[in-house]
């Protein structure tokens, strides 16, 4: 309760400021944390990227993605991003005469996820878990395996249902086309963030030289000697195309969920057996107790940080337990490292959805960005048995709490 009220006050303060502040153009925030990480990884102490790098990266991104007020969609992304939708989601909050809304992202999401989708909006530091930083392209609750982006359906579901047990609210009340606009905008911010990281990595591989080198070609010959078809052929974006292709193929990589065994039905004669097989697996081959603990209360053992934190925390010379060592990263916008806890499975709160199929996919694929691993050696029936057991913990809890 207390947390909620301080959050509300902050939100009001943020809104108030937005209303009274000078009308400066809103810019995407440069990923300075990634730059510092690259410098630490690949350069000597005290060495930095050339001063021009930031402008170069910003410029390329601006050409490809536009600004928070005026989004661009390059042709490479045409197959997966719709410019009309992006325009609905981007920009300041307003609507056209015909009622078409603008600025949905700033209205509903930016105070948590940040204008740039860096997960560091005004209220972020108060929330646990932190809002998602979209720029790594990693998502937790989806139907696809690790390193495959979520499908549109997955993102739509997240917006419909929110993430129970976290600050991420449900946007069920928004009309479908607004949800679709926000889904595209999440993908847009994510792809933009991924390309930004790739460009920064590219700069570090260039040995600290500038990304651009100006060559003045005074005698540039013979475009006429090329046929019209040749030109587009010679033109093929590499980085951006790779990133977009992964998003584009997500639908084909959805993890199939086989039908549950008959005993999965509560009340079926085999249900008890399946549940106790699941309990057995939870302690043995499932390896679940190592993290979730024997009572599944989430107290199995110490765990590490999540990928969004580890991404910079694992830079050489940084000690997660030495505040001084990570201060420079926080000064550039990184959020304070906070260890992730395995879930207490007795509470019946499933962030990725409580349908049997959802829990099946969590166990089969793991949870991207978190320590929760993918089950490599369990058969589908074994996974179903685990789902039955995990669900039974909740029912047991129900019984317990009822008078």
């Amino acid at each position, binding site marked *: 309760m207390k947390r909620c009220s301080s959050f509300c006050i902050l939100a009001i303060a943020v809104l108030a400021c937005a209303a009274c502040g000078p009308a400066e153009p809103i810019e995407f925030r440069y990923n300075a944390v990634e730059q510092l990480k690259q410098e630490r990884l690949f350069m000597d102490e005290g060495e930095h990227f050339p001063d021009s790098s930031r402008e170069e990266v910003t410029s390329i991104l601006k050409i490809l993605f536009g600004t928070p007020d005026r989004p661009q969609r390059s042709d490479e992304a045409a197959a997966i991003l719709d410019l009309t939708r992006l325009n609905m989601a981007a920009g300041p909050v307003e609507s056209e005469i015909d009622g078409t809304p603008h600025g949905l992202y700033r209205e509903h999401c930016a105070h948590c996820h940040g204008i740039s989708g860096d997960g560091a909006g005004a209220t972020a530091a108060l929330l646990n878990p932190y809002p998602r930083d979209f720029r790594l392209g990693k998502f937790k609750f989806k139907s696809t395996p690790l390193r495959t982006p979520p499908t549109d359906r997955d993102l739509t579901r997240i917006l419909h249902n929110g993430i129970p047990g976290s600050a991420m609210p449900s946007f069920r009340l928004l009309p479908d086309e607004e949800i679709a606009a926000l889904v595209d905008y999440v993908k847009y911010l994510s792809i933009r963030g991924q390309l930004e990281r790739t460009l920064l990595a590219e700069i570090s591989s260039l*040995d600290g030289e500038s990304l651009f080198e100006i060559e003045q070609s005074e005698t540039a010959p013979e475009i006429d000697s090329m046929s019209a078809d040749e030109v587009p052929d010679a033109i093929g974006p*590499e980085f*951006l195309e790779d990133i977009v292709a992964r998003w584009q193929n997500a639908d084909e990589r959805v993890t199939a969920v086989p039908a549950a065994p008959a005993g999965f039905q509560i009340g079926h004669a085999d249900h008890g057996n399946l549940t106790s097989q699941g309990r057995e697996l939870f302690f043995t081959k499932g390896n679940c107790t190592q993290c979730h603990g024997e009572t599944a209360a989430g107290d199995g053992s110490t765990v590490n940080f999540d990928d969004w934190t580890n991404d910079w925390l694992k830079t050489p010379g940084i000690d997660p337990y030495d505040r001084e060592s990570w201060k420079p990263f926080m000064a550039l916008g990184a959020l304070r490292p906070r260890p992730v806890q395995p879930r207490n499975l007795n509470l019946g709160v499933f962030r990725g959805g409580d349908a049997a199929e959802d829990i099946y996919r969590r166990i089969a694929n793991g949870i991207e960005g978190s320590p929760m691993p993918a089950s490599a050696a369990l058969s589908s029936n074994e996974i179903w048995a685990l789902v039955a057991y995990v669900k039974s913990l909740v029912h047991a809890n129900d019984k317990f709490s009822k008078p």
Partner: protein
Amino acid sequence: MATATQRLEQALNRKMIFGPGRIVTRVALLNTGSFAQMMTADLPTEKSFFIRIDANRKIFVHVLLALLVGFALPCDKAFPQASDSDQPWANVSGRILLEGKVPEIPLEKIDGHKDRSICLVDGKIPTDDSLVVDETGGLRDVFVILTPLDSETKIPVHPSYHKAANTTLELDNRNCRFVPHAMAVMTGQSILLKNSDAVGHNCKIASFNNEHNVNLPAGGEAEIKLELADRIPANVACDIHPWMDALILAKDHPYVAITSVDGSFQLKNVPMGKWKLQFWHQRFGYLRKLSVPGVKVDRKGRIDLDLADAQAMELGSMKLPVSAIK
């Protein structure tokens, strides 16, 4: 001329390009956006430019001084490319020695963990294995990586490796350590993750291009592949035992050696030609402070490797100052 201009404009407007030998941006941007402003510092306005990335992935901005006279498509440089069969091959070897006082190696932070008894090695708490130096100064686990001069060039692979690419490598979890600590694989090669311990682990592999997080119960195993090549090794970690770590480097060729306990390495059957040899270590990053007799080491820890007709190339003892630890 007008048609050429139009065509160029069309082509450039159509796509942003990121890729070797390709054009990147559109014309007529000079008066818009900060990118344009950056350019105008040196240039008269109203001029057009395009960008290409050459084969070394360096991005060039070409400025067409005359308004769209036309442009040159960059032509890729030709590289000596020996055929697989009838060319000689050389073995490249050397040894990396640490110079200076080796810092005290800390014990792994096992105390207080519920699995402590299983994580002891011969009844003792093991030392951290990110810096392993023998009594002669030999530095273990330096990655020695053959790199082409150019990202377009594919390194010819000696027939003896064809079979190796289909063999399965093992990464064991034993006494809560990864064994081996450092390994190199080819993209698409199978890696068997094993757990020889009586307690469960998870095996989380993360790099710029690859990612896995495998559940490994006591006695369990699972096979994985790294599908894409990386610049530096992926981190391997276990969330249950946070001190556990290992490194796996995936490359699309087999020419990666890892120094053994005395700091020595050997790359076998390297094709003739001009290459670079790059050195990387977990605690040092690229070994730019490495001194190799008579050879210059660049900022990326690389030396030139010119294999003409030598059957064996011995680089000798190379010294690395302890002070270069990050």
